[in-house]
């Protein structure tokens, strides 16, 4: 191409010189005008052609502004209006950066602000693992208020129901959430799973709203179990399922409770306490399935703690269920529903790898940020490798730790550096050409990034091939002026609503005082050594808190 350009230029120059000489020799005004106009016409043609070549392939996406392309750091190139294509954003992105590097303000808020441009009409779920309330306020201030705000701690939270869904989905979720795994034996885990598999179909099959408290009462209070079986019969649930449940309830209460003691202890955390009303609403404000289908904007405020981590795992699992539904129905018919997980390092868990893979293929791409490689490795080395393999876009902000910097440098890759050396020795003069592979960046360059500055590695389609540019860019920070004036959702009571109500009848009704002081314990035996089927409060011991 360059050769043709040179030839064309030479021919044009000769023709132009001919014109100039001819206009002088023949004193022709026409030739003179032509000699003046022709170069101008050619310059105009070249200008229009160059302009029409600008960002050809990328039409919509997340606009990052001007960037310096350093795919080959020896030949940096200025890129006007760099943008991550919308199609590539559907594959998810990862942001890695230390505290104060701009992960939240530049990546999370920037992505949210750009969402209407590259995925118009889509919903979004934001999971904020740091717990800063200013992030919510900035979201609102920049014009992206969520439809629902959920918080594990703040009083203005919307409500959820962690028991929502089909029986097998609830079983999977609660197995992951409530049953601990040991490397020594899986006896108790298997037994507890079997109990859940027996009771959950009864609860979800009676066509009444249920919650985790109903499950707790059904497992721990024999009378509640009896009522559940009776209602299951009325609802004409499969006789085999009822028979299995009856069989379990006929065991000695002591044996029964001993088997599921660990499960009850874990379940109790979600049933009793200052923040559990919002998890047990029979008619919750947030129905994950409906929210995804109706493209609602959800904001989950989850300040890291053991409790919020457990809640987060349950919520993530509910999104996983919806992702599976979309997968099976054919994801291409659904609009994008991105999940943004900010500062998610402390929330990665064992099932996160399969969850992320499922979401990606269900048009629910994950975009998450974290601070340190150690947070990813805590899940598994395999998961750390999966991040590299599966996420098309990586945004590396300022990182501090050696290990994390090394991980970031590996993500950004190597390039072929050409070295030319010339020697001028008397008889051995000559030029040598060498090639070596070098990291595109070094750790110091990552440490010296200013807030909001980042290296972005993404994919761009160029005709029939994909290219992987690496840009250095200052991410555009959305305007969220006066965010301090934004108020949090007002405090509210988290009404339970109308549902099965086993907890109220068998635990709350015994004594309001008890409900604040009960802890699960093995049921006391009756004189004839049978489980206390008639009792309710007898199955609990009152402890002084």
């Amino acid at each position, binding site marked *: 191409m360059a*050769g043709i350009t040179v*030839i064309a230029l*030479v*021919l044009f120059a*000769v*023709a132009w010189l*001919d014109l100039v000489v001819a206009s002088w*020799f023949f004193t022709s005004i026409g030739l003179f005008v032509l000699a003046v106009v022709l170069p101008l016409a050619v310059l105009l043609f070249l200008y229009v052609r160059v302009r029409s070549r600008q960002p050809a392939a990328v039409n919509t996406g997340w606009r990052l502004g001007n960037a310096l392309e350093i795919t080959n750091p020896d030949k940096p190139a200025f890129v006007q209006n760099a943008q991550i294509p919308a199609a590539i954003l559907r594959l998810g992105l990862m942001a890695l950066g230390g505290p104060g590097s701009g992960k939240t303000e530049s990546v999370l808020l920037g992505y949210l602000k750009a969402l209407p441009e590259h995925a118009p009409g889509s919903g979004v779920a934001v999971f904020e693992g740091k717990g800063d309330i200013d992030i919510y306020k900035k979201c609102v201030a920049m014009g992206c208020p969520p439809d629902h705000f959920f918080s594990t701690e703040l009083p203005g939270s919307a409500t959820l129901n962690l028991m929502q869904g089909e029986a097998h989905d609830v079983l999977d979720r609660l197995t992951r959430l409530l049953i601990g795994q040991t490397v020594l034996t899986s006896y108790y885990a298997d037994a507890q799973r079997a109990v859940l598999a027996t009771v959950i179909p009864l609860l979800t099959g009676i066509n009444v709203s249920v919650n985790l408290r109903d499950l707790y009462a059904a497992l721990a209070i024999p009378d509640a179990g009896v009522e559940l079986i009776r209602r299951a019969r009325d609802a004409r649930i499969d006789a085999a399922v009822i028979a299995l449940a009856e069989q379990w309830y006929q065991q000695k209460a002591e044996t029964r409770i001993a088997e599921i003691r660990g499960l009850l202890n874990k379940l109790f955390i979600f049933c009793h306490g200052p923040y559990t009303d919002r998890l047990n609403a029979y008619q919750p404000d947030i129905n994950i399935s409906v929210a995804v289908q109706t493209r609602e904007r959800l904001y989950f405020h989850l300040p890291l703690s053991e409790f919020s981590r457990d809640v987060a795992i349950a919520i993530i699992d509910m999104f996983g269920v919806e992702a599976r539904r979309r997968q099976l129905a054919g994801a291409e018919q659904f609009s994008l529903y991105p999940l943004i997980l900010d500062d998610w390092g402390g929330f990665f868990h064992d099932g996160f790898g399969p969850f992320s893979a499922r979401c990606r293929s269900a048009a629910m791409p994950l975009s998450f940020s974290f601070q340190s490689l150690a947070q990813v490795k805590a899940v598994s080395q395999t998961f750390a490798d999966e991040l590299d393999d599966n996420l098309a876009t990586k945004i590396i902000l300022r990182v501090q730790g050696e290990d994390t910097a090394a991980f970031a440098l590996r993500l950004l890759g190597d390039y072929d550096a050409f070295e030319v050396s010339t020697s001028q020795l008397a008889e051995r003069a000559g030029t040598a*050409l060498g*090639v070596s592979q070098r990291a595109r960046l070094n750790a110091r360059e990552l440490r010296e990034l200013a807030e909001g500055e980042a290296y972005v590695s993404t994919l761009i389609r160029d005709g029939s091939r994909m290219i992987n540019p690496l840009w250095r860019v200052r991410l555009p920070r959305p305007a969220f002026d006066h965010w301090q004036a934004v108020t949090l959702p007002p405090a509210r009571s988290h009404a339970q609503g109308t549902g099965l109500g086993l907890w109220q009848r068998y635990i709350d009704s015994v004594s309001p005082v008890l409900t604040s002081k009960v802890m699960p314990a093995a049921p006391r035996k009756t004189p004839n050594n049978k489980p206390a089927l008639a009792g309710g409060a007898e199955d609990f011991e009152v402890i002084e808190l």
Partner: protein
Amino acid sequence: MTSWIRLWPMLLIPYVVLCVIGLIPTLHIFGRDVGGPYIREWVLNECLLPLLPQSAAIRIVDGFAHATVAQEFLLHALIMLNVYALVFPLLFGFGMLVIKYSVWSTATDLALKRRALKQ
């Protein structure tokens, strides 16, 4: 490796030769006058006049008849520049081929050595 730094004379020399032909002094060889104005006149007759309209050709011939040696040479150089422009793509293409071959042979040599070292 060969580059245009080495090859640029290859592009220039043909034009210089074409121009220098017009500067050869008039010589009397075997009873005939050759060189000098005869060459410039021949170039004018064969390369320019057949392409021009008759009126323009007559004005050129008139001008050439009253021109000094320097003016004749400038016209000769201009005509030769056009002739050279026709040849230029061939020369340039040949230069590109030489460079590409040189780059290919060097790069292949390097790649083979790298591969051999890795094994």
